[in-house]
C-alpha cells in the first residue's frame, strides 16, 4: 500500500516536472511568436512546420555553446546561482492541485503532490527564495552590471513581497484556510445560486494586486529592471554563457508557468468550470477530473498569454516609479482591501 502511494506520487511528480519544463520550453517559442504578432512580423518559422521545433534548436544551441567562467569570478557560487534559480522555480508546483480526485479501478488518486496545510505560505516562501539565485549569480560574476542587477532584484523582490502577502491575507479572510486544495474545492462550479464561486469575483482588487506583484516577482516586463538591457548590459546574467544562461532564462519561464497556475488556482477556480457536475456525471470519476485538469491548463495558457501581452505592450518602469508603485500605491491599496474585506465579512 505504502509502496503504491510512493509510486503514485513519484509518477505524478515526474509528470508535473515534465509538463512544467515542456510548458517553459514552448513559452519561449510562444513569446517569440506573440512578440512577432504584436510587432506585425512572422517570428521563428524555419525549424519544423511553423517553427514548432525552434525550442529544441535553441536548447541544442545553448548546450553546444562554450561555457565561460570569468577569471575573477567565484567559480562555485557562479554555478550555484543558476542552479538555485531553476531549482526554486521547479519546486513551487508541488502544492498546486491539478485536478479533482481521480478514481482508477479501486484506487483514489490525488492530482496533487502534497496537500500541506500551509500551502499558500509554502508558495510564498518559494517565491521569496527565488531571488537568491539571481543575487548569488549576480554577485559571483564580479561584474558591476551584474551586481547592480542583483541588487535591483533583491530590493524589488522585498518590496513587492509585502504587497503580495497583504493581498493574500484578504483572500485568506474569505477562504479561512491556507490549504490550496480546500481553497480550490470552495470554488466548486461557477455559480452557487447567490454569487460567483470563483474568488476573483469576491476579491477583484486583491486579484489585481496579486497579479501585479506576480509580474514583479517573476521579473517580467514592465518590472524586468534586474535585466534592463538599456542600462545594465544584460543585468544579473551579463557574464553568463551556455546552458547556465539558459537556466536563468528557463527559470523565468517556469516561474511564469507556476505563478499562472497559482493565480488560476487562488482566484480563477483552479480546475473548476461551469457545469462541471454534469460533465463529471457523464464521463465518470476517471475521465471527468481530467477535463478539469484540461480547463486548468487552458486558464494557465491564458495567463501566460497575458504575461506576454503585457510585456510587448507596456514599456519598462523607471526605478523610482517601480518603488513608488510598490510602496506608495500597492501596499496602501492592499491594506484598504483588507479593511474592506473585513467590513463586508462582518456586516454580511
Amino acid at each position, binding site marked *: 500500500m505504502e509502496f503504491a502511494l510512493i509510486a503514485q506520487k513519484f509518477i505524478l511528480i515526474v509528470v508535473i516536472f515534465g509538463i512544467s519544463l515542456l510548458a517553459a520550453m514552448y513559452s519561449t517559442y510562444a513569446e517569440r511568436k506573440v512578440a512577432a504578432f504584436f510587432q506585425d512580423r512572422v517570428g521563428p518559422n524555419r525549424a519544423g512546420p511553423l517553427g514548432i521545433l525552434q525550442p529544441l534548436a535553441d536548447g541544442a544551441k545553448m548546450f553546444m555553446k562554450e561555457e565561460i567562467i570569468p577569471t575573477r569570478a567565484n567559480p562555485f*557560487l557562479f554555478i550555484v546561482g543558476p542552479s538555485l534559480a531553476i531549482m526554486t522555480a521547479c519546486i513551487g508546483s508541488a502544492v498546486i492541485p491539478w485536478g479533482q480526485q481521480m478514481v482508477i479501478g479501486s484506487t483514489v488518486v490525488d492530482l496533487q503532490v502534497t496537500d*500541506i*496545510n*500551509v500551502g499558500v*505560505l*509554502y508558495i*510564498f*516562501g518559494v*517565491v*521569496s*527564495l527565488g*531571488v*537568491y539565485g539571481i*543575487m*548569488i549569480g549576480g*554577485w559571483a560574476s564580479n561584474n558591476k552590471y551584474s*551586481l547592480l542587477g*542583483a*541588487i535591483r532584484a*533583491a*530590493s524589488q*523582490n*522585498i518590496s513587492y*513581497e509585502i504587497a503580495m502577502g497583504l493581498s493574500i491575507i484578504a483572500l485568506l479572510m474569505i477562504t479561512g484556510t*491556507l490549504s490550496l486544495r480546500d481553497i480550490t474545492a470552495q470554488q466548486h462550479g461557477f455559480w452557487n445560486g447567490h454569487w460567483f464561486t470563483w474568488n476573483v469575483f469576491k476579491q477583484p482588487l486583491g486579484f489585481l494586486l496579486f497579479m501585479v506583484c506576480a509580474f514583479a516577482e517573476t521579473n517580467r516586463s514592465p518590472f524586468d529592471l534586474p535585466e534592463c538591457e538599456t542600462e545594465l548590459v544584460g543585468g544579473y546574467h551579463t557574464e553568463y554563457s551556455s546552458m547556465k544562461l539558459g537556466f536563468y532564462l528557463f527559470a523565468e519561464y517556469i516561474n511564469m508557468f507556476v505563478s499562472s497556475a497559482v493565480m488560476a488556482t487562488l482566484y480563477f477556480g483552479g480546475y473548476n468550470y461551469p457545469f462541471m457536475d454534469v460533465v463529471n456525471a457523464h464521463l465518470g470519476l476517471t475521465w471527468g477530473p481530467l477535463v478539469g485538469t484540461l480547463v486548468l491548463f487552458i486558464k494557465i495558457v491564458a495567463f501566460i498569454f497575458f504575461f506576454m501581452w503585457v510585456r510587448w505592450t507596456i514599456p519598462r518602469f523607471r526605478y523610482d516609479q517601480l518603488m513608488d508603485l510598490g510602496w506608495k500605491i500597492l501596499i496602501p491599496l492592499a491594506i484598504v482591501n483588507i479593511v474592506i474585506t473585513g467590513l463586508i465579512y462582518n456586516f454580511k
Partner: protein
Amino acid sequence: MRAKDFVIIQMSLFYFIAFLSILFALLVIFSKNPVHSVLYLILTFFTFTIHYILLNAQFLAVVNFIVYMGAIMVLFLFVIMLLNLNKDTEPVKKAVVKIASVVGGGCLLATIVASVKALGISEPVVLKTADLGLVKHLGKVLFGEFLLPFEVSSLLLFSAMVGAVLLATKDKSNA
C-alpha cells in the same frame, strides 16, 4: 514496530540536521568573506526550518522560511553586497583591542563550558496534542489566551518601524 522505526528515523534525522546547524553556524564565524558568512547563515536558518518541521510546527517552519530566509537575509545580503567588504578595506585593529578580545572570548568560553558541565539532561517533553504547531491551533492560542502579549509585541514592532522611518527621513528636512 512501525512507530518505533519512525522514531529512530526521526531521531537520526534530528541528529544529522543538528550537526548541520552547528557546522553552518561555525562556518558563519570562520569564513573570511562576509558574503560567504551570510550564505552560511541562510543555510543555518534553513536547518532551523527543518527542525521546526520535525517538531510538527509547520506554520512556524514556513514563517521562519519566509521571514528570516526570504526577507531578512535578503536584506543582509543586499547590504553586504553593496558595502563590498574585502581584506584591503578592512581596518586593522590595534594590538590592545586584539588582546582584550582574546581575554574576553576566553572568559566567555570558560563560562559556557562550566554551564554545560552543570547542565543535566532534561526529560523529553511529550506534547499533549500533536497538532500544537498547526495554523488553526496557533491562531486560537495567539488571539485568545495570549492576546495581550501579542498586541503589546505588535505595538513594540510598530514603534520600532515609526522610529526607523523617522531616522531615515531626518536628513532630508535639514538639507
